[in-house]
């Protein structure tokens, strides 16, 4: 693990940040186990769990059969038995195969038992489009889980957050669906130096990635970088755009959103998930509820069209929000 060789001068990428979070939590919590397909011998399809089985043994890092429903259900049982569980979906797209166990068993356990049993389970996996992964290796399906009460939903966009949020998620007694942006895994541009000491990023705190006064851009995951790119272009045109990275969707940091809109009076949400009933629409509704009186323009959203993610690159680009779309919509909103 390059990341630990020379922490002073070596930057850590998003993937290694996740890896070290899981590793450190496995080290500090003897009751933590990891379940997933190909996570042990192989070390995971992307290598997030590389080296963990050798370090912690086959009974703490288990290669599971190709059975997402079993992975989730067994995680629930292990949590009922007192364990902390990291459960990997090889791609977050396959979470649909364990869907019932997530929304009906895992999400509701604490509620049903009137607080007797907490499900300390993190379900994590590579997510997101823009990489030519087509319909089943590109999904951002977080809205399904935001609509299922009892689940926390987290989407880090930087190595620092990936590590800090993963640690927070693994220590949170509630089930967390943790979206890792696979296009960011090895992106050297965003690699950064991480603190040597233990730290967490608390769930429910957004980050302001760039300050501005003319418009609030709200997003998470990969779209944060599209927003930042758009903000740079808009700056060239003389517009100062604030960029909020939500980091966690449930719980949501409403205060940061409100503060920003009080200042900018305009908001645009950018989101690669399908439009209808996506989290972007939820944000627009919340902005209405929170800040209607502060709005000088309708809060808008830029999202994927209501289509699956197609394979051919031109098609994929066509249905997904692009930097230029953000720039032109932002311009329109600022001039509204």
């Amino acid at each position: 693990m390059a990341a630990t060789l020379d922490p002073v001068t070596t930057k850590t990428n998003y993937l290694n940040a996740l890896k070290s979070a899981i590793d450190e939590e496995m080290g500090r919590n003897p009751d933590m186990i990891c379940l997933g397909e190909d996570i042990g011998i192989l070390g995971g399809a992307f290598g997030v769990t590389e080296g963990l089985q050798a370090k912690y043994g086959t009974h703490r890092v288990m290669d599971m059969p190709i059975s997402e429903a079993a992975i989730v259900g067994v995680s629930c049982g292990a949590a009922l038995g007192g364990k902390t569980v990291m459960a990997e979906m090889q791609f977050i797209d396959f979470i649909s195969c364990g869907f019932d166990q997530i929304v009906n068993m895992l999400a509701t356990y604490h509620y049903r038992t009137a607080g007797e049993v907490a499900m300390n389970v993190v379900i994590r996996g590579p997510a997101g489009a823009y990489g030519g992964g087509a319909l089943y290796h590109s999904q951002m399906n977080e809205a399904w889980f935001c609509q299922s009460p009892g689940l926390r939903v987290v989407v880090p966009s930087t190595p620092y957050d990936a590590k800090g949020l993963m640690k927070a998620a693994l220590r949170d007694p509630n089930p967390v669906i943790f979206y890792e942006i696979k296009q960011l895994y090895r992106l050297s541009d965003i690699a950064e130096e991480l603190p040597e000491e233990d730290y967490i990023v608390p769930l429910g705190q957004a980050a302001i990635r760039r300050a501005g006064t003319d418009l609030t851009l709200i997003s998470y995951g990969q779209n944060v970088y599209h927003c930042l790119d758009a903000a740079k272009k808009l700056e060239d045109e003389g517009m100062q755009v604030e960029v909020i990275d939500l980091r966690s969707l449930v719980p949501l940091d409403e205060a940061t959103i409100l503060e920003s809109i009080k200042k900018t009076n305009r908001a645009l949400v950018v989101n690669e998930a399908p439009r209808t009933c996506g989290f972007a629409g939820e944000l627009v509704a919340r902005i209405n509820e929170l800040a209607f009186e502060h709005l000088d323009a309708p809060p808008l959203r830029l999202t994927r069209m209501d289509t699956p993610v197609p394979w051919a690159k031109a098609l994929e680009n066509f249905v997904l929000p692009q930097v230029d779309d953000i720039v032109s919509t932002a311009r329109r909103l600022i001039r509204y």
Partner: protein
Amino acid sequence: METKTLTPPKSGSGSGRKSKAEPQSTTKPSDLLTPEDCLEMLKQLYLARYFDVRLIKEKRRGRLTGTLYSSHNQEAILVGSLYGLNGTDWISPIHRDMPAFFIKDLRAGWDNPDRLGMSIGEVCAQVWCRSGSPGRARDNWSHIGSKSKRIVHSTSMLAGTIPVAAGVVLADRLNGGDAVVLTYNGEGSTAQGVFHEAINFAAVHKLPVITIVENNMWAYGTPVELECPTEDVATRAAGYGIPGLIADGQDVFDVYDKVMVAVEHARAGKGPSIVECKTFRAYGHGDHDDDRAARYRTKEDVESGRSRDPIAICKIHLVNKGYLTKAEAKKYMAENKHATQTSDEDFPPDVVSYMSKGIEFALASPPPPAEEGAMWVFREEN
């Protein structure tokens, strides 16, 4: 009570391959039960029956809300499977297994506060939708459980607890425990995908997961032959290379024998089993279905399906063993009666009073306050 009714419909191993877990000697686990054990099992059968009968009556009087899935005629499966467990073993009952919640570890003393099963009061509080329920009446009927009593909480989604059961014994094994888990499922529920995924996983890792299949011949309005392609549901075990045992679900001792074989197998680290218990659903699928069930099942089928009452069969055994005189056996005649035909005199008085105290507990418990609807979605403290 004719002895011919002792004849089980079938027995032996349902899996194609000869099960390695079959008892090798002629001594059956039940042969080692003491007279007290055997009489206790009979009493537990009475209790399970009385619980059900009483709820049927209460429901008819409009005192209960929700659907009642009667366990009438299937009590031997619960008593026989639970009797040999340790308190620290886990169970995961489903809709038709309400008595399982308090029969678990009942052997440790009906009034023993430390026993690892629910109190009948807690179960009644759940049925009466009161805050004294272990789940504070947030979900209905059989969807209760208890971490400390080692009972998995089911959802409605059939077979959905089997992977959870596998997970809980995985955790126990990692902690050095030797607990087994009994999961209960109707024969129809074995068609669910998660049944396959969970048992396959448990078989790969030789986890102590025992799946009791309560084959009562019907899944709601669908007969078993439209649910399962093999004559015996236990045959499903063959696909995983695990024992598939078949018990006479009307005979509490046969259930005990087959389950104990599976329990020993599991505890010894040899992995899961399926124990199919052949039985017959006495009434409709739920009480709402009683009238329609009378149309989709012939009268003759229902009569023959119910001709082997588990209380009657248990008594025959006890008389044969000399633990009960014929006169004693005739003292309480709960068997072979429709729930509404029974009266409290058909049950031992301590059974009636045990249940009555449970109901008293329930009725003394207030309904949960409205605001609790919004509570416990998350655990807030860290």
